[in-house]
């Protein structure tokens, strides 16, 4: 008994070190900066001035929500059909879904600039038919596209996972009790895939709300989301304290969202779904 608890501690040690170094320490620094001024004295000014950015927050949540919804609408049927195809096709498709994730996020976003740009791939193609170039880059649509494109795999994979390991006998039991095919989706498949949906929403919504790179590259600086503001505070305005306060609020907001989502699932199911 004693032995095993020592081993347990040894096994846990790197993990604990890791969390202290890269999670807890930065968190404490964020909190410290948020409640101090440039001289290091305690102040609530930073927190108070958050109010000025309320509309940015709302806009960010809006963008995040739209991107998440689109991801869900695309991913759910995709994951469903994927889970119902042959084993080798499934393996290959899952590989293809994950393939872009191995490429740098920056390069992926950059490549969309060359596709959507005024003299980009699409417009030069349209140009051959004498069609005026469409301005697609630097629009809200381009930003949403960037979010959906970048984060879609994070929606597909958890939903696919629940679909693939779904107990077929439950579906048969439902049919047996009088459930037609469509009804089955609503009464069995949907409720059983809730944990996957929740993981997917979390993994898409959180990075969408806080992104700044996508808005800068595909929104051309015209669309300012909260991520851009925070980045600006650190990089340009050099106001670490306000930046930290905004980050803190973003964090709290995300935690609240997660809490609300967690309410819809049994806490026990959630862990198994992520990977």
């Amino acid at each position, binding site marked *: 008994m004693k032995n095993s608890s020592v081993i347990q501690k040894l096994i846990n040690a790197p993990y604990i070190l890791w969390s202290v170094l890269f999670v807890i320490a930065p968190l404490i620094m964020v909190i410290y900066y948020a409640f101090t001024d440039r001289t290091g004295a305690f102040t609530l000014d930073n927190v108070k001035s958050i109010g000025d950015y309320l509309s940015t927050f709302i806009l960010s949540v809006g963008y995040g929500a739209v991107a998440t919804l689109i991801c869900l609408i695309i991913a759910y049927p995709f994951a469903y059909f994927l889970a119902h195809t042959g084993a080798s096709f499934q393996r290959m498709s899952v590989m293809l879904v994950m393939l872009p994730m191995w490429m740098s996020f920056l390069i992926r976003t950059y490549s969309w600039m060359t596709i959507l740009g005024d003299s980009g791939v699409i417009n030069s193609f349209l140009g051959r038919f004498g069609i005026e170039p469409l301005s697609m880059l630097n629009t809200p649509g381009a930003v949403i596209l960037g979010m959906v494109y970048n984060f879609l795999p994070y929606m597909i994979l958890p939903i696919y996972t629940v679909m693939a390991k779904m107990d077929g*006998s439950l579906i*048969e*039991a439902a049919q047996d*009790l*009088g459930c*037609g095919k469509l*009804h089955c989706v609503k009464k069995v498949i949907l409720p*059983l895939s809730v944990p996957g949906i929740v993981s997917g929403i979390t993994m898409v919504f959180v990075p969408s709300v806080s992104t700044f790179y996508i808005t800068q590259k595909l929104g051309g600086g015209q669309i300012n989301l909260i991520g851009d503001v925070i980045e600006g505070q650190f990089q340009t305005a050099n106001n670490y304290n306000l930046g930290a306060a905004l980050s803190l609020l973003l964090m709290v907001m995300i935690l609240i969202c997660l809490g609300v989502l967690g309410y819809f699932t049994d806490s026990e199911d959630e862990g198994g779904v992520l990977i």
Partner: protein
Amino acid sequence: MKNNPVIIDLQNISVSFGEQKILNNISLQIHDGEFVTLLGPSGCGKTTTLRIIAGFLNPDEGNVIFEGKNINGVPPYKRQVNTIFQRYALFPYLNVYENIAFGLRLKKMKEKDIQAKVKEMLELVNLKGFGSRNIDSLSGGQQQRVAIARALAVDPRVVLLDEPLGALDLKLRKDMQVELKNIQQKLGITFIYVTHDQEEALSMSDTIVVMNNGEIQHIGTPTDIYNEPKNAFVADFIGESNILDGIMREDFNVEFEGMRFKCVDKGFSQNEPVDVVVRPEDVDIVPENEGMLKGEVTSVTFKGVHYEIIVDINGFKWMIQTTEKSEVGDRIGISVKPDEIHIMKKSEYSGLYGDYSSFSEEFDILSDPTVSEEDSE
């Protein structure tokens, strides 16, 4: 039971998965209100047969007739047949009440009627007051009851049970056997029950269907199947049997082990080779000089109610169940009454079953150098 009309008629059903033939020309008539058990070793096609009746699988050949109508291709949700799955298949996101109400809601029943029906079902399966419980807070036996209640709530004409008690411990299993049988008799509906436990089959069924390798070996009442098995496979699978090579010399007279025996079977051609079955509990031990056959005891095992004794008679090992103790090495005689000798036609299973040599295998290997040599290769 046999006077009731036929409710399900399987006509020459065959199914293959790929090259493999899983069911081979199965024909079976099931009467309304009957308790039918499909019995057979693992992989013999019991579940496949149930899936065909439930509509999850369509036969490659043959017809499924329900009350005179061909229901080939009718989807499961349109059949008046409900399944109780082996691993229950309860909906984990619904509580006990909603699980039982699932089929009723699909029927668009009024809320008041649903309530009454669920209450009735909970009482039937002894789960009064469990309505609001979560599925995963229930024990295996309780989940089993919910599964039964859920299937019965929709008033099926036929209930299919695929090894419903397989996951329960022995005591609970026995209780549930009695309970299931009571429920079936009370409601008067047809049960088609799958098991590979022969005792369960014998004690619960009106009719037993013994299957092997996708074929029906024997259909009959439990006593038929036990007393008059159709072939060596059935004799061996149901209970213990000594199965010997014999020759039917004439009606009521069979020869085996070089001796003539009186029996009660007739209708074989003269000198037809046959399989002879003698149940271990039907063999009487007598002093050596009084025995019809004589041999040496090679193993004695105490089984609680009786001793299981293996006797070597001219190289064939008989199993005998008796309340009297013998010692290994004793020379004894055995005697069998005419009505305890059962004659079967030769079949593909002849010679495969019914010799208890394996019982004293360690013994053989020690005393027989050729065997141990082969083994060590």
